[in-house]
């Protein structure tokens, strides 16, 4: 028999996790908009509740449409499974809440989405979980920040706001040297640009709201387990390696050598915190994923053209994109992100806040809103929107200038986008 090859990402995007519906023959994934699922008999019911048989009981815990999404994402990432959640924030919360309780500590990159920073810096300390933030490029700082009660290292594959590239292999090595897992937020890269498990990460989450969904139509999250981390050998995770009174005394690690984390996260975290995804949302995200490889290729192609255009414009002070030789992570990006550095980036407009306002208001195609990863191109000027309360000094501390503009490049014709930007740049400089 000829040696087989594993299927490509493009194929898995369409097929993983699904077969045509056995009862109706439906080829597309059906939306199972049902809260609950009938038991065959009482023994079947008892077996489902006690995890002696697999199946769906109630859609807060699992649902057939969601399961297709979960298995597909796991296949794309090369993991063992995943859990679909109500949002990216819910995915980050579930990861943390499964691994630790009060008295625990996280080491996180400083270059994070603002919502993640809020959760770690302000909200979790109220529940007894502390975070030390480090500059992601400072590898010494990651190791130095680890304490006896540290449970997790965490960063974004491409970090806000300057597109810091996380050195996943190096940070994973530091984590593993201390018997700790590494969680990455891979929202900006998607499995098309990077497969963090292949580089050493242990857990991944996505705000599926962004490129996975891809059309700005659903808020969604997904948490993926690589199945690589040995919780037993680590000795720091009694939640996974000792009997849990809240679920039949189950020792999750004993139950499943590679699935302990996800079993606990579903059986406890989804059950108790309840941040489940609606099946209709799962279907919308699945529609997006079917074309993920096509879209990401186009997102990156358009982004490269626009980065190049902006670099030639006199109204532009600087452009920050890791494929540019001047970016501090240029070499790292070549190694870890050979297919591109995504479609979200910032540039600095000359003329400060006023120029930024004029630029945004002159645009016709780019939509002015607070999101990224849509099929349509998006723009935001942090100094007059998300960060308008901050003075210039506070902005600078957050890595943002008064003229910083963030773009999320969509799938339109690059020529049309460039023409729109050219109009905005002209308007920005007319005092």
């Amino acid at each position, binding site marked *: 028999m000829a040696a087989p090859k594993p299927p490509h990402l493009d194929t898995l995007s369409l097929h993983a996790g699904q077969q045509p519906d056995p009862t109706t023959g439906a080829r597309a994934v059906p939306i199972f908009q049902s809260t609950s699922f009938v038991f065959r008999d009482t023994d079947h019911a008892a077996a489902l509740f006690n995890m002696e048989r*697999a199946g769906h009981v109630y859609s807060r815990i699992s649902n057939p449409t*969601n399961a297709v999404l*979960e298995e597909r994402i796991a296949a794309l990432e090369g*993991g063992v499974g995943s859990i679909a959640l109500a949002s990216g924030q819910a995915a980050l919360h579930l990861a943390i809440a499964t691994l630790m309780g009060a008295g625990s500590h996280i080491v996180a990159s400083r270059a994070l989405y603002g919502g993640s920073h809020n959760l770690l810096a302000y909200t979790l300390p109220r529940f007894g979980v502390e975070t030390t933030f480090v500059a992601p490029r400072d590898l010494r700082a990651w190791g130095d920040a680890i304490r006896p009660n540290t449970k997790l290292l965490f960063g974004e594959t491409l970090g806000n706001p300057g597109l810091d590239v996380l050195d996943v292999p190096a940070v994973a090595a530091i984590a593993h040297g201390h018997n700790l897992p590494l969680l990455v937020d891979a929202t900006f890269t998607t499995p098309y640009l990077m497969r963090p498990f292949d580089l050493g990460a242990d857990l991944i989450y996505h705000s599926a709201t962004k490129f996975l969904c891809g059309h700005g139509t659903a808020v969604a999250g997904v948490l993926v387990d690589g199945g690589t981390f040995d919780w037993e050998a680590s000795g720091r995770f009694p939640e996974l390696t000792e009997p849990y009174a809240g679920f039949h005394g189950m020792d999750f690690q004993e*139950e499943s050598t590679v699935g302990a984390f996800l079993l606990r996260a579903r059986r406890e975290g989804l059950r108790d915190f309840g941040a489940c995804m609606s099946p209709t949302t799962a279907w919308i995200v699945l529609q997006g994923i079917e074309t993920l490889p096509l879209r990401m290729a186009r997102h990156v192609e358009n982004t490269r053209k626009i980065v190049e255009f902006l670099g030639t414009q006199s109204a532009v002070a600087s452009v920050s994109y890791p494929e540019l030789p001047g970016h501090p992570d240029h070499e790292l990006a070549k190694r870890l992100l050979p297919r591109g550095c995504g479609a979200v980036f910032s540039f600095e407009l000359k003329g400060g806040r006023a120029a930024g306002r004029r630029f945004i208001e002159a645009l016709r195609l780019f939509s002015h809103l607070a999101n990224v990863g849509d099929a349509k191109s998006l723009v935001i000027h942090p100094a007059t929107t998300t960060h308008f309360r901050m003075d210039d000094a506070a902005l600078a501390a957050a890595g943002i200038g008064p003229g910083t503009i963030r773009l999320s490049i969509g799938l339109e014709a690059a020529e049309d986008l460039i023409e729109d930007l050219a109009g905005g740049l002209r308007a920005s400089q007319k005092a």
Partner: protein
Amino acid sequence: MELDVRNAKVYAYTGGKSFDPALPCVVFVHGAEGDHSVWGLQSRYLAHHGRAVLALDLPGHGRSAGQPLASIEAIADWIVEVLGAAHVPRAQIVGHSSGALVALEVAARHPGRVDRIALLGAAFPMRVSTELLEATRTDEPRALQMINIWSHGAYAHYPSSPGPGFWVHGANLRLMERQKRGVLPVDFAACNDYRGGLAAAAKVRCPTLFLIARRDLMTPGRTAQDLVKAIAGARVVEIDGSGHAMMAEKPDEVLDALRDFLSSAMPT
């Protein structure tokens, strides 16, 4: 549960219940590069339905200490020592792949210790392709990739093990990768070198079940036929739509077939 056999730690998953040797005992034997967790759902169900369950990690696999044993016969003799350590006089033995050959050998060599055997994905001879055998020695990642692709019948099943949201292909690959380096070539050589299948089958007197997955590319159904013919009264159940990794791909069908077989009246 931990047992001590030949002065080495042996780990056995007991299905989430404490082990009671007074109950009828079912021993689960995993195949090459596996551990007890391949039997997760089936073993847990039976433990909660009146059986004493020992889902073993073979020596050198999972949590069990020591080196992997180099032949099917050696593993069979070791199983009987495990029964002794667990104070189990007689057991039903369920094996998958090379574990099925082990179950066959235990029944042939130690008939007084075995009530029934269930053989999942059995084949004789269990020849391993030259390319794969070579890869187990020289390119383990490539070998695991080949095994993983050949082990699965489809990109999705409902339900699959351990439950919704698990990508069966990914979980199987990761489980194999978790085994220590050097276990894989020993396990596959043991399959490839095993010669005693027909002689053992001729000696089997206990009720025997063959579970054959219709999409099995590792041990296709026809490769079990000589064994089936050699065991008088052997029962055969075929499983639709599944590859070799049938406990994960079709956990309900596998469990139902095992439950019916293990609880059917003993022939007199």
